[in-house]
């Protein structure tokens, strides 16, 4: 067979998930193909040209810390940086950037093209091939077959996609593009459940026809903060966004035409995101408000096109034409592209393992919007994890699973595979129970060592990380050891009113150690949060106990007659791996968990056999992090040769034998290895 059609890993779709998946797989040494409907739309921002935001910005930092691409792509192509939630505590600080849409795309394409081991090719994938239930490859339009040992599907909104603008329906996953038609059928044939979601975009306007003088200017930050831990300073000049609002006249026209909106005429039945409502939704649901904000966001440096953030709509063109001129600053505005809604197939993500491999077809991974999420950042995070795990599956390595206490990425994937989705899923900080620890500023401290251990963090990033860790450590040491009037500097800094400048004034030796600004910020945050971080750390310990109370993967829930039928159905569908997970499944009440625990306790004797099965299966063993112990030898490859006491260390279990009968396989208790990273531990 022709080698051109034989790969280790095939990634279908070159959006934000596909890029990360393909790059990760190729960087982990796997021969990878990235197949896209159109090579010119690699990394396209179908919706607003911005990356990051509250909780999402943290995700981008995490992707970067693991060795992903999104942070670097954003830094290189952004036209405006803003750190959101500046007025709140450090854990809430969330970077966001407007990007040059085209520049981002070009750089994404270039990054993919220049990646060794990675083939970018324009193909329309129309079907999946399996052999004995395992993925075997994909079939493209024209009957071309690609063979692979793992396939990652990242088709976004393209599956059976249908766009709506008023009464007009057009097949396609994005304005100007076609839909992916064959793949849904192929997934259904394999037994996957597919459902429909809806999302929408606003009209885009020609900036030449906007009267900016009438509008409120929203400039970027004066000290733009990059996303990537590798990016030095942002030096490119930044562009402004502008703010305008709807008004009573606009609302009146929308109300008059509400029956023509597909969501209200019954033309669209699918669920859309509540937190990202269309303008018609806002007007119906918040009838008492007579204005809604609109952010006019430039789409790039080499275009005058503006994105009207805040008036996503699927109203007919004539209604869009009628309302735009009524908006301040848009009196003579020309619409370049009309807003539309898109309906698409997604695969309810409870059909996935936490590795993002499907439960049904080994070797098949799903990532991104196909899993019912929204957002470039959420998609990229899944793509990264799916790509990593697709590559690892080929070497029969345990999958990388990041848990809820380690990263927003962990929260995201756990929510998806355990709780499922009933509307397009977007990340919020409130979804993370340990958010004081999941900050954008420490994403590298949380994750870069994991990235290094799996082989995704290159030497450059690793060296940078080690430098930062030692800078932080030097500062911590000074803060701990220097005392002023009996109080350590650390203690003084903990006082809410003390600033770093105050401290430098007290202790001039800090001046020299303060050259790394990010290191200074790190120790300040750690001190200011002090006791709260300790508390979250203790919470994580409790969390970990439930997470590691394993449930046998093959537990027969029908043999627990006391379980409510609804609970039994949910457990059978999702097959939680731990009591912690089981408790998070929607519709499960505490009595169900009690019943399950009672059953597990009763079956303690029989459990060992079940545990054997559990372990023997290619079960992901959590990669845990814990504070580096001082008396342990330095890791191989340490740059300094010393063992910095703060460095994270990865602990992993040796994988249990993967063959042999249940009777002979040794029972290995899945050991608790996840310990929280405590930046203040001594």
């Amino acid at each position, binding site marked *: 067979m022709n080698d051109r059609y034989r790969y280790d890993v095939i990634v279908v779709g070159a959006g934000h998930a596909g890029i990360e998946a393909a790059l990760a797989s190729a960087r982990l040494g796997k021969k990878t193909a990235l197949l896209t409907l159109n090579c010119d739309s690699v990394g396209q921002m179908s919706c607003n040209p911005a990356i990051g*935001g509250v909780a999402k910005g943290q995700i981008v930092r995490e992707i970067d810390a693991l060795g992903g691409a999104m942070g670097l792509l954003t830094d290189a192509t952004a036209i405006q940086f803003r750190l959101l939630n500046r007025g709140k505590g450090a854990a*809430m600080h969330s970077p966001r950037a407007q990007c040059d849409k085209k520049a981002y795309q070009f750089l994404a394409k270039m990054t993919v093209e220049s990646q060794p081991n990675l083939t970018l090719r324009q193909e329309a994938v129309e079907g999946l091939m399996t052999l004995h239930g395992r993925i075997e490859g994909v079939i493209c339009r024209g009957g071309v077959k690609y063979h692979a040992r793992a396939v990652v599907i990242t088709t976004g909104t393209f599956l059976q996609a249908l766009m709506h603008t008023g009464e007009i329906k057009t097949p396609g996953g994005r304005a100007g593009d076609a839909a992916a038609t064959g793949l849904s059928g192929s997934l259904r044939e394999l037994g996957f459940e597919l459902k429909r979601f809806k999302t929408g975009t606003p009209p885009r306007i020609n900036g030449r026809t906007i009267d900016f003088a009438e509008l409120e200017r929203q400039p970027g930050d004066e000290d733009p903060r990059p996303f990537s831990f590798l990016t030095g300073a942002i030096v490119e000049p930044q562009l402004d966004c502008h703010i305008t609002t709807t008004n009573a006249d606009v609302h009146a026209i929308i109300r008059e035409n509400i029956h023509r909106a597909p969501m209200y005429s019954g033309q669209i039945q699918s669920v859309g995101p509540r937190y990202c409502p269309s303008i018609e939704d806002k007007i119906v649901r918040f009838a008492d408000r007579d204005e809604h904000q609109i952010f006019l966001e430039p789409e790039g440096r080499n275009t005058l096109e503006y994105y009207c953030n805040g008036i996503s709509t699927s109203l007919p063109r004539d209604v869009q034409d009628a309302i735009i001129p009524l908006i301040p600053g848009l009196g003579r505005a020309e619409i370049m592209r009309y807003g539309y809604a898109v309906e698409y197939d997604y695969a309810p993500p409870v059909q996935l393992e936490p590795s993002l491999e499907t439960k049904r077809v080994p070797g098949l991974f799903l990532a991104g919007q196909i899993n019912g999420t929204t957002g470039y950042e959420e998609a990229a995070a899944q793509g990264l994890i799916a790509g990593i795990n697709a590559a690892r599956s080929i070497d029969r390595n345990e999958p990388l699973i990041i848990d809820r206490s380690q990263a927003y990425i962990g929260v995201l994937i756990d929510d998806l595979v355990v709780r499922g989705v009933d509307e397009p899923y977007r990340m919020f900080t409130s979804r993370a129970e340990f*958010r004081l620890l999941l900050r954008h500023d420490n994403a590298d401290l949380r994750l870069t060592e994991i990235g290094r251990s799996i082989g995704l963090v290159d030497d450059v990033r690793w060296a940078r990380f080690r430098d930062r860790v030692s800078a932080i450590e030097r500062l911590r040491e000074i803060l701990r050891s220097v005392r002023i009037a009996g109080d350590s500097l650390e203690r003084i800094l903990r006082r809410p009113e003390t600033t770093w400048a105050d401290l430098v004034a007290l202790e001039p030796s800090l001046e020299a150690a303060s050259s790394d600004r990010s290191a200074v910020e790190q120790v300040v945050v750690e001190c200011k949060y002090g006791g709260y971080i300790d508390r979250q750390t203790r919470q994580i310990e409790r969390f970990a106990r439930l997470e590691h109370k394993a449930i046998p993967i093959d537990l027969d829930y029908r043999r627990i007659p*006391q379980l*409510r039928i609804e609970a039994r159905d949910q457990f059978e569908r999702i097959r939680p791996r731990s009591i912690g997970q089981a408790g998070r499944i929607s519709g499960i009440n505490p*009595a169900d968990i009690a019943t399950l625990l009672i059953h597990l306790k*009763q079956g303690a004797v029989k459990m060992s056999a079940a545990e054997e099965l559990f372990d023997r299966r290619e079960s992901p063993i959590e990669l845990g992090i814990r504070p580096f112990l001082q008396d342990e030898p330095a890791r191989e490859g340490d740059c300094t040769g010393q063992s910095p006491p703060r460095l994270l260390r990865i602990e992993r279990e040796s994988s249990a034998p993967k063959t042999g009968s249940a009777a002979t396989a040794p029972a290995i208790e899945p050991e608790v290895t996840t310990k929280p990273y405590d930046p203040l531990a001594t």
Partner: protein
Amino acid sequence: MLDLESTIVAIASASGASPRGIVRFSGADSHAIAFKTFAPVRREPIPPKPSGLWLAGSLKLPGWFSPVPVDLSLWSAPRSYTGQDMAEIHAPGSQPILDAIVDLGLTSGARRAERGEFTLRAFLHGKLDLTAAEAVHAVVAAESPARLESALKRLAGGISTPVERLRDRVLDLLAHVEANLDFAEEPDVDELGRERLAAAIDREAAAIDELIARFHARDRFQSLPKVVLAGPANAGKSRLFNALAGSQASALVSPIPGTTSDTLHAIVDCLGLKIELVDTAGFVEDLFDDADNKIASHEHAPTIARSAALLRDEILAECDLVLLCKQSLDTNPWISFPGRSSLLVWTKIDLRDPPSDPPSALATSASQGIGVDRLKAAIASRLNDDLRENDATDSMSTRCREGLSKASLALRSAAEAVATSFGDELVALDLRLALEELGKVVGAVYTDDILDRVFSRFCIGK
């Protein structure tokens, strides 16, 4: 191992003679077993899944000549107390009849229910939250009316309801804080304002404290059971105190009524059970409203006597056992303390033989050392009985109290975070903690700790 699907039977009404007794069945065969010998008055077809169906009829019991008139009520899974098929036979409240009905159930394939098993089944079928289940268990275990009342109050949502409401309000607060964190950029999100937020949090913390205070009023939780000597002035309480306390005795005794105006404490060993014995000021006659022996007014008493009486009232309110003392010469009626466990004690029987009525009263003479050991034995026996039935109630209330205290603490910490202008994310952290704790009280959140209690309370997997 308990088979929680088999059909079980037990007498569900209080023991002792009463107009009506109930025998309860739960499990798949409940209906069939009940119908084995039940003959309805009217021969009507029974609907396929009866729920709350009442049938009048009679029961033919082996060894009984005439059929016993009974009512039969039937419930079907899942709409029953236990979530399983259930039957109840309401019969005349005679122990032999009820026993015979249970025997009939046993010979027809049911098994005797373990203590608390109906509750356990209800709990496992999601019919009860843990608080309610524990409360039911407390009812099962309760024997004294006071404890039963307290347990029943809880079962009826005595704490669940206010805590649920509280939790609901704290959830609202958290939602507000969270909205401001996640949607900072949204103009639609209104900021609650730090003062209003702080005030709202304080209000909820105060509400919790009030609930805790109610707990304190209702339950006592000393490490040692407290036994109090009470009775009219000059009843010889202090002499008895000295006799019981032995070498530690330090009560000043005199024939003048009102000698003991402060309280005296001693640790006394009653057959291995350590108790805290408390001597109190006697009841001075004119302080009483005779009708129900309540203190009418302290205003006219001398200051010391008045404060002593107040102190005594406090001690009496939180004691585990009252030793009601009366001179054998005294012909006044016994003072009584409704709802308190008490023993009647004749004192100074060396002066005169005590009346034979009531027979339960213990005769003592402290000066002669008569009856002191018997009194100790009676104290130990009564306390042991009481403590046993107390267990369930106390462990429940301990858990609730713990949860409430932690929630209160968390809210105070949240208020502090608001006041010191820490970020809202820290306020949210504390609110979440408070919610978690309140959730534990009403059973909305379960932890291993709570489950461990369930496992230790109910007989499972042993």
